[in-house]
C-alpha cells in the first residue's frame, strides 16, 4: 500500500503571479489553515516534492525554469495550477510577455480558480491532487514492473 497520499510534499513556484495567490499558498501552511494536517510539507526542493503548486502565468523567462523544476521532480507527481493566472493567464493574458497558464509548458492536473485563490480553494485543490496520487502510484508500479 503506497503512502504517498499521506505525505504529499509540495513545492511552490511563483510563475508570474501578482503575489496574491502566493501569499494565499503560504497562508495555507500557517496555523489557521495548516495543510500539514494532511502531511504536507512545504519543501523548497523539487527533488523532494510530490506536488507542484504553481501560481501565475508563464512568461518567456520563467518558462525554462518551470519546465526544469518539473523535470526534477520524481514520479509520481501532481501539478496544481493555483489562481486564475496559472489556469489561463487571467487578467494578464493579453500582456505581451504572458504565454498563458501553466499548462502551456507542463501538464496540469488540477486547476484551482480564483483571484486570488482562497486558502480553502487551495486546500481543496491539494486534497483533489492527493486523490490522484493513488492512481499515479499504481501506474508507476505497473510501468516499473513492465520494465
Amino acid at each position, binding site marked *: 500500500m503506497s503512502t504517498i497520499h499521506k505525505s504529499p510534499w509540495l513545492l511552490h513556484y511563483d510563475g508570474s503571479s501578482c503575489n496574491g495567490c502566493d501569499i494565499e499558498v*503560504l497562508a495555507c501552511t500557517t496555523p489557521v489553515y495548516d495543510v500539514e494536517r494532511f502531511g504536507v510539507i512545504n519543501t523548497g526542493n523539487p527533488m523532494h516534492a510530490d506536488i507542484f503548486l504553481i501560481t501565475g502565468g508563464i512568461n518567456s523567462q520563467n518558462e525554462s525554469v518551470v519546465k526544469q523544476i518539473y523535470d526534477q521532480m520524481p514520479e509520481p507527481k501532481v501539478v496544481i495550477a493555483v489562481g486564475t493566472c496559472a489556469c489561463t493567464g487571467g487578467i494578464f493574458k493579453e500582456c505581451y510577455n504572458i504565454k498563458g497558464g501553466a499548462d502551456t509548458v507542463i501538464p496540469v492536473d488540477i486547476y484551482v480558480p480564483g483571484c486570488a485563490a482562497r486558502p480553502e480553494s487551495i486546500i481543496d485543490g491539494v486534497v483533489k491532487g492527493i486523490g490522484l496520487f493513488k492512481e499515479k502510484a499504481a501506474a508507476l508500479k505497473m510501468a516499473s514492473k513492465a520494465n
Partner: protein
Amino acid sequence: MGNRSIVPYGPQHPVLPEPIHLDLVLEDETVVAAIPSIGYIHRGLESLTSKKDFNEMVYVAERICGICSYMHGMAYCMALEDIMNVEVPRRADYLRTIWSELSRLHSHLLWLGLLADAFGFESLFMHSWRLREKILDMFEESTGGRVIFSVNTIGGVLKDMPKEMLEGFVKQLDEMEKEIRETTRIFLDDYTVKSRLVDVGIITGEDSIRRGSVGPMMRASGINVDMRKLGYAAYNDIDFEVITSNKCDSYARCEVRIGEIFQSIDIIRQCVAKIPDTEINTKVTGMPNGESIIRVEQPRGEAFYHVRANGTKFLDRFRVRTPTFANIPALTQTLQGCQYGDVPLLILTIDPCISCTER
C-alpha cells in the same frame, strides 16, 4: 578563481517565494559580489492600457501586487481623479485611509513572518501570520476579498463600512494590539534574532538617498520622509509622526516597521472617530485628458504613479514605479560583504515586491 565560489541564487528558492535571481560570488560564506537579475515575473501590464479602458485598468492596477493591492488600486484611481478633476467624497477618503492602514498592518505582519522564516524562526513566522489572519478577516468582512479587494473605483469606493463594523474593527484591533506587542517584542529583544539583525546590511542615510531608496528602508537610515505627510486621502486630518531610526541596519528596518504597525492601529482609531457621513463615491463622466503624478506611501515605501491620458478611453501611458524597484540598488549595496545566510534576510529587509517591480 581560487577559493571563490560563484553560485546562482534563485529564481526558485524556498526562502524567496518570489522569483528573483542573484549571481553570488562568495568567499567561504562572505558575499564578495552580488548581481541581481529580475524578469522572471515580468508580464508587461503597463502595456494593457492599449487593450483595456481606463475603468478596467483599476482592476489591473490592483493586481500589480497582491500585498498592497489596495493601495495600487487607490493610487491609480487618485491619478485619474486628479486628471479628471473629480472631488472624492470625504467618507470615501476616510474609508480609503482605513483600508490603506489595514493593508499596511497586514503587510507588515506578513513581512515580520517572512523575516522570521528567513532567519529560521518557524514558530515566530507562524505566530505573525496567525495574527495577520485576523486582519484578512476584517478585509473579507468589509470588502469580500482577502487579498484583492476590488472596492476602489474612480470617484470613490464601492463599498461602505457601517458604523458597527468599524467599531467592531477597532475593538478587535485593541485586543490584537497587546498580542502584537508581545510578538514584536521577540523581534526586538531575542538574543538569536538580534544576532541576525543587528549590524547586518548597513546603509547610511546619504547612501540611501544616493541609491534612491524609499520607505522604511530609507526611514531606518534616519531620513524623515513619509508620503502620507503629503496629505492625500484623509491623512491631512490625521495626527501622526513619521517613524525613523538612526541605526541604519536590518534591526532598524525591523524597528521602523514594527513602529508603523502600532501607528497604523492608531490611525485607524482616529479615522473611525472622525469619519464623516457622506456619499462614498461620485459619478464620473467623460474621458480623461491630461497627465498626473501621484505618490502614495505603501507599506514598502513610496509608489510613484505617472498616468497620461489623451482624451480617449485608452490611456497613453500608465507608469508605476514601485517601492521595490527603487530599493534594489540599495539592496545590491547591502549585499556586498554580507554573509550567505544574510542574503535572504537582506532581500527581505527591503520587503521585496518583485511582482510589482517587474509589472
